């Protein structure tokens, strides 16, 4: 018999935990759920749009009765659990149900705090917490009653007030403090907010202390301490929430401000877990949804007895769900004497942005009027990214800092029509994304990617897709955990894996997977190439390259094309070629009937449409003319683009072509975390476009300027200046050292631009400029690893028989092979 799991609480936290559990261990438990409301699980956060008439109750249901039935979950709707007997392992509901458990999950949520003033029990005095409250508000409004008073000018109070206003009531918001949303906003943002809400018709009474609610059986008004009275047909209390832990406390579980749990979401009774707003974790209680979901994931992991996940607390942000008013706030937005503030203020546009920095890291943020970049700032804050290099432009947003190719100038999802294209790579429209989120109940950016492909290719529209997610769901669900595992096969991060490979001298992928307790035997198509790279970069002399873990292009040293043919790009040193080389390329193109010959952006020649079985012969003939692989397919050194420099150009100050060739001779063949492009320009006119390369060199009369971290692709990023050096030998040393530090420290598939933005330019300068011995050592390590890397892979395959199986079919048979019936009908042994 299966063990029994009982969940007390049919809300978002409890049911999310069950959903996570069903994903990883669907058959483990017999599950019973108790909920005191007469509904299935619904999205409580979207009660505001329901009140405002923008959504219906049906729109916000997350799990209907069919869901519980489909998962064999016994649901006791309308049952309030009144006691738990932990010795007998039984729970009792007020309605008479008695159910025993092997494991218990408490997710009782929180209750609104009701001010204990005279009259608080009158009819017409309600909170804003559940569907029943919303019905009461709507009924009152529809009955033609005029006056509503909302006590509490926080997030919830303002959302309630806005909803009631939309339903035609005259609404007064009463707040004890002198500014609205004082827990989330500073005075400037609060005043802007108040102004917008007043324009819509809300009235405010600030610094007002409620003394008494007037009326005999039904509420008629509210009196304040200063004697002022306002009429009221409805009073909504939205002054705060309190965790519901009475049940747990009566059962003898340790509670303080909530039910105390450890990092596995376990209470003091090992059989009893708790999640959500009723919980106190590391002294913190949470009233927002994102932390609940993180807790749910961890709790499910332990209920499934996997035992490796930890909840370490959440950094939270808030957004106001009032249509047309964009407010975002996170972290410590008031600052201390150690912090500084960067502020952008445009009163006529109604825009205010404030970032609070401490030692160049974002500690808090307030955005008013333009919250497009909230996810980006929040991510920078959670990752504690050094933003020194971005400070000048950071308030203009991510697009300004990283570019926004592929989705035009669209940056306001609310104003986008359903047929507006969001993802230019995969042709996904806004309507498609919204439909998938609603119908498939998607909550995270990863889920939206998997189902719609939006933002799954180049990623430049990620912020836009996140905004659609937020707009559709009503809150920011898409927060990825602060430490993100490499892939689903492990819970270790890139950095932890790199560190283990270095520290414990792991020299095979199998050793890495065993040492770090991989969850899958072979890994997957995400982690295998990454680990293979980390091994080669860290132990070049010892590691045997695992070709089966390389993407096809690096396995067969050519670029796969959409029709399954390949393209071949020979290396043309510094972009300088000869008539003999060109003749050899022309002859090969003729002989093998190569359909397209194209000049690339990197000053080379691309032969497109080569059949796979022809590759070794094509390479062999190119080799005979002295041409080797251009690694145009590699996460490695691609090209060194040059201008003609002082040899020909009347403006040239140095021999940029010669410098480029020397750089390419030194660096070709090296594997890097992502592709690596260089350029050398002979004067500041910069004809070789060195300022958008991973490593760019610009000649000046007195030497060479070195630039790093440029990118000309999805997100155009201009290089940062590293330094100026005098000699060609210096250029080579700094280039080698920079590449080596990037090779050793960056995450697999992270371009130099993203790496520098993650670690900060000061860190790179410290490693390359300040630490002279370190630079020389890195350069030496680079040259050492090149001994093992500078072997032409084409020659190996064309004339030395390496990987011959890749280029030959196993067999050609003239007869038809038996098709098997669909596997869903019949399983084949």
């Amino acid at each position, binding site marked *: 018999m299966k063990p029994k799991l009982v969940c007390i609480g049919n809300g978002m936290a409890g049911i999310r935990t069950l959903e996570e559990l069903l994903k990883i261990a669907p058959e483990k438990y017999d599950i019973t759920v108790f909920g005191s409301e007469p509904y299935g699980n619904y999205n409580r956060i979207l009660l505001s749009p329901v009140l405002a008439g923008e959504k219906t109750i049906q729109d916000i249901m997350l799990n209907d009765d069919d869901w519980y039935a489909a998962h064999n979950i016994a649901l006791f709707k309308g049952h309030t659990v009144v006691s738990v007997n932990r010795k007998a392992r039984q729970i009792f509901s007020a309605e008479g149900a008695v159910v025993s458990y092997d494991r218990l999950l408490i997710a009782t949520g929180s209750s609104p705090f009701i001010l204990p003033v005279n009259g608080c029990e009158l009819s017409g005095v309600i909170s804003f917490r559940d569907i029943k409250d919303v019905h009461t508000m709507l009924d009152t409004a529809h009955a033609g009653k005029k006056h509503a008073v909302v006590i509490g000018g926080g997030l919830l109070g303002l959302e309630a007030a806005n909803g009631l206003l939309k339903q035609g009531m005259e609404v007064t918001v009463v707040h004890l403090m002198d500014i609205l949303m004082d827990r989330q906003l500073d005075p400037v943002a609060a005043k802007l907010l108040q102004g917008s809400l007043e324009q819509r018709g809300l009235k405010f009474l600030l610094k007002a202390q409620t003394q008494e609610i007037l009326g005999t059986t039904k509420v008629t008004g509210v009196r304040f301490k200063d004697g002022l009275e306002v009429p009221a047909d409805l009073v909504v209390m939205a002054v705060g929430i309190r965790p519901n832990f009475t049940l747990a406390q009566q059962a003898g579980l340790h509670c303080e401000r909530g039910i105390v749990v450890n990092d596995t979401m376990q209470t003091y009774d090992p059989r009893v877990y708790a999640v959500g707003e009723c919980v106190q974790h590391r002294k913190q209680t949470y009233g927002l949804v994102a932390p609940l979901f993180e807790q749910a994931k961890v709790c499910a992991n332990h209920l499934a007895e996997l035992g490796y996940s930890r909840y370490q607390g959440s950094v939270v942000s808030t957004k106001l769900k009032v249509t047309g008013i964009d407010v975002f706030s996170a972290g410590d937005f008031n600052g201390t004497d150690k912090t500084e503030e960067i502020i952008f203020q445009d009163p006529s546009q109604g825009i205010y942005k404030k970032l609070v920095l401490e030692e160049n890291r974002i500690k808090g943020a307030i955005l008013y009027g333009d919250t497009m970049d909230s996810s980006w700032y929040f991510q920078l804050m959670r990752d504690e990214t050094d933003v020194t290099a971005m400070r000048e432009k950071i308030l203009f947003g991510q697009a300004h800092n990283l570019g926004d190719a592929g989705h035009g100038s669209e940056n306001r999802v609310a104003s986008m029509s359903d047929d507006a294209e969001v993802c230019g790579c995969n042709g996904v429209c806004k309507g498609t994304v919204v439909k998938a989120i609603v119908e498939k109940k998607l909550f995270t950016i990863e889920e939206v990617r998997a189902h719609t492909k939006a933002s799954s290719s180049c990623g430049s529209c990620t912020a836009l897709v996140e905004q659609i997610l937020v707009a559709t769901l009503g809150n920011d669900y898409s927060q990825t955990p602060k430490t993100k595992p490499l892939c689903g096969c492990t819970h270790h991060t890139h950095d932890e894996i790199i560190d283990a490979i270095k520290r414990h001298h792991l020299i095979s992928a199998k050793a890495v997977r065993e040492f770090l307790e991989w969850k899958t035997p072979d890994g*997957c198509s995400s982690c295998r190439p990454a680990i293979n790279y980390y091994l080669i970069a860290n132990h070049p002399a010892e590691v045997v390259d695992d070709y089966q873990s390389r993407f096809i292009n690096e396995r067969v040293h050519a670029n796969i094309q*959409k029709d399954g043919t390949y393209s071949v790009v020979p290396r043309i040193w510094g972009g300088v070629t000869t008539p003999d080389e060109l003749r050899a390329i022309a002859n090969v193109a003729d002989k093998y009937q190569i359909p397209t010959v194209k000049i690339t952006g990197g000053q080379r020649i691309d032969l497109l449409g080569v059949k796979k079985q022809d590759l070794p012969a094509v390479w062999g003939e190119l080799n005979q003319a002295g041409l080797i692989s251009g690694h145009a397919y590699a996460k490695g050194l691609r090209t060194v683009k040059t201008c003609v420099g002082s040899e020909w150009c009347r403006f040239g100050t140095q021999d940029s072509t010669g410098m480029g060739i020397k750089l390419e001779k030194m660096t070709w063949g090296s594997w890097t975390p992502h592709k690596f492009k260089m350029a050398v320009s002979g004067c500041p006119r910069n004809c070789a476009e060195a300022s958008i390369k991973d490593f760019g060199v610009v000649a000046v009369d007195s030497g060479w300027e070195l630039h790093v971290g440029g990118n000309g692709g999805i997100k155009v990023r201009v290089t940062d200046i590293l330094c100026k050096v005098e000699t060609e030998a210096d250029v080579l040393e700094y280039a080698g050292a920079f590449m080596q530090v990037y090779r050793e420290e960056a995450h697999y598939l992270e371009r130099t631009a993203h790496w520098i933005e993650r670690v900060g330019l000061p860190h790179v300068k410290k490693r390359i400029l300040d630490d002279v011995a370190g630079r020389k050592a890195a350069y030496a390590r680079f040259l050492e690893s090149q001994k093992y890397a500078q072997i032409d892979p084409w020659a190996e395959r064309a004339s030395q028989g390496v990987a011959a199986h890749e280029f030959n079919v*196993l067999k050609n048979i003239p007869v038809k092979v038996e098709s098997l019936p669909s596997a869903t009908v019949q399983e084949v042994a």
Partner: protein
Amino acid sequence: MNWLEVGNLQDIPQMGSRLVETPQGNIALFRTSDDQVFAIADRCPHKGGPLSQGIVYGHVVTCPLHSWKIDLSTGEAVAPDVGCVNRYAIRQSEAGKLELGLAE
């Protein structure tokens, strides 16, 4: 069913693939890390990508063009993608010979 020998287990690298050309088009033979062998059409249900060129792990291959994942044992795309690819009859003899089952 008649069976036709097309090669040996050792002809295919572990977690790799080889092709057999047939009148029905290319059939990709996959050898997984546990030395099981699967035969499916070399055409991703998404945009026709050559599955034989993908990275193999467990009993799954990732298409090299757009990273769809295909379950080798069922021929079906791994959710949430939807689609399936033809599977073909294949068996291993005790001596490690690979044999394809021929259509009647």
